[in-house]
């Protein structure tokens, strides 16, 4: 599937409306880090990745792992937009309710089209490395994409995997760090600064690209560049705005993990129209 940037921007708007609506309906969830990642997931699912929603277990497919599993709403909305049969759009507002397929964090038991059950930070890149090695061993063209949070980058296991992937020379693995600058307790720079982040990935021998992760054109270009890199994995350090698209959520630590009220939802939807 190939989509123009303008088409993707329209989809991104709908996804942002879904995110704030479903989190309000669920009365809990993580709006900030879902909104920051919208452009990246929309580009992956609607342009970059070789996937077939009607055949979600196609062995040669590309795979996406949301290592920062608390941003589940953006993944659910994008997969619903993309038409996966096990992510119906009309159930998005059951998020986090008993019996819902839309669990608080991505859960393959409820949505088999997901590539991993995540939610405990730090683990997705190791899984992605294993999948990249598996694809290479079988001679499959699959590319593996793993999205990490900037706060998540404080987890030691991230750097175990970051050390191992270039050692194994996997060029079918791309990490994306959603560098939105905020974690649960406040600003990342105040809790445990991860800067300089791009330099860290470069030092670990990754092909490293720094972009504005809310700029759809830049996001597309970065994935195109990553696809051409040989002999090493790529890390895209994506500078994003937490809560992007809703003025009172932008760069506001409160909306890391707090649901909007009904009044806030109204304001948010007005801005997102």
């Amino acid at each position: 599937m190939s989509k123009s940037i303008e088409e993707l921007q329209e989809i991104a708007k709908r996804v942002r409306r879904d995110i704030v609506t479903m989190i309000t309906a669920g009365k809990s969830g993580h709006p900030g880090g879902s909104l920051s990642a919208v452009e990246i997931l929309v580009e992956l699912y609607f342009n970059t990745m070789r996937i077939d929603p009607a055949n979600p277990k196609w062995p040669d497919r590309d795979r996406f792992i949301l290592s920062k599993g608390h941003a589940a709403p953006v993944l659910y909305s994008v997969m619903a937009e993309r038409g996966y049969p096990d992510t119906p759009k009309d159930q998005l507002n059951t998020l986090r309710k008993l019996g819902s397929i839309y669990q608080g964090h991505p859960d393959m038991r409820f949505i088999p089209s997901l590539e991993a059950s995540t939610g405990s930070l730090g683990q997705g890149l190791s899984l992605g490395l294993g999948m990249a090695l598996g694809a290479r061993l079988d001679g499959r063209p699959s590319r593996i994409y793993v999205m990490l949070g900037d706060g998540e980058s404080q987890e030691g296991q991230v750097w175990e995997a970051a050390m191992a992937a270039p050692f194994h020379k996997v060029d079918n693995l791309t990490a994306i760090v959603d560098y939105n600058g905020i974690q649960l307790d406040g600003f990342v720079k105040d809790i445990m600064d991860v800067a300089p982040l791009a330099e860290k990935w470069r030092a670990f021998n990754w092909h490293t690209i720094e972009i504005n992760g809310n700029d759809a054109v830049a996001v597309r270009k970065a994935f195109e560049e990553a696809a051409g890199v040989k002999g090493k994995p790529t890390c895209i350090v994506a500078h994003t705005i937490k809560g992007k698209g809703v003025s009172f959520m932008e760069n506001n630590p409160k909306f890391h993990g707090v649901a909007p009220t009904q009044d806030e939802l109204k304001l948010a939807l007005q801005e997102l129209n």
Partner: protein
Amino acid sequence: MSLKTKFELKPGPATREAFGRELVELGRENKDIVVVDADLSKSTMTTYFAKEFPDRFFSCGIAEADMVGVGAGLAMSGKIPFVASFSVFVMNKGFEQLRVCAAYGRSNLKVVGTHSGISIGEDGPSQMSIEEISLACSLAGFVVIAPADEASTKALVRAAAAYDGPVFIRTGRPKAPIVYSGDQKFAIGKSVEVIGGKDVTIIANGLLVAQAILAAEQLDSEGVSARVIDMHTVKPLDRDAIARAAAETSAIVVAEEQLVDGGLGVRVAQAVAETNPCAMEFVGIHNTYAESGQPDELLDKYGLVARDVAAAARKVLSRKR
């Protein structure tokens, strides 16, 4: 009745050695078998596999959490990965990854812990795993296996590879006495009655199976008929064999090289309580860490030899009466 003719208990290879050899056989038969390692292949014996199949052997360096995650990712790509390290490292440093990526994620991951228990010897307590059976059993959906000798290890490693789902296999460092001839059959979840008996039942696994056999021989000379069951699969437990033993002997000793707080003993006790409650005694490690020493010295000092198993049997018999 002379049991000694049946069980010579000759020294055999370590169960880790048996694992490493069988892994190569499996690798020859199935190209989907892969191995992920954390710098201990010469100790876990995955080095044999690495030498024959270098393209299917992945080093993670000294990074057990990453090793488990990479293994799970390979499993999710259709491979049958074995990840191996000392039990103490893979289970403690990799536990959360085992929980999220292997158990909850239900990956087809095979986890092999070597150098289990205090019989690792001279390296001392930081390397001694005395809680991994308890930890492994607390991973929902895991199969947990602790084989006694070479033949049972090879058969159960093979069974684990054929099983679709996460498995933990506990192996040891020292030479393991040979309990079984090559024609004994093993299946996951099906215990082996090593010796028949009617007065008391000794349920053991790992190195304690040989000690249970020696204890049964001693008890036999005292006129006590002891049944010995090798409970090589700790989860799922062979509840039928346990219920039968409880009903028929009304006295059970459980013997294991593990903290008694959460290992085989408590799981057997639960099955006994739920079926045919009877008197029980527990041979294992009691609320302590061991020390450096030779394996045999340590097993003796920490109460894990035939003498201790026989004493527990006499005690449970006195309570039965």
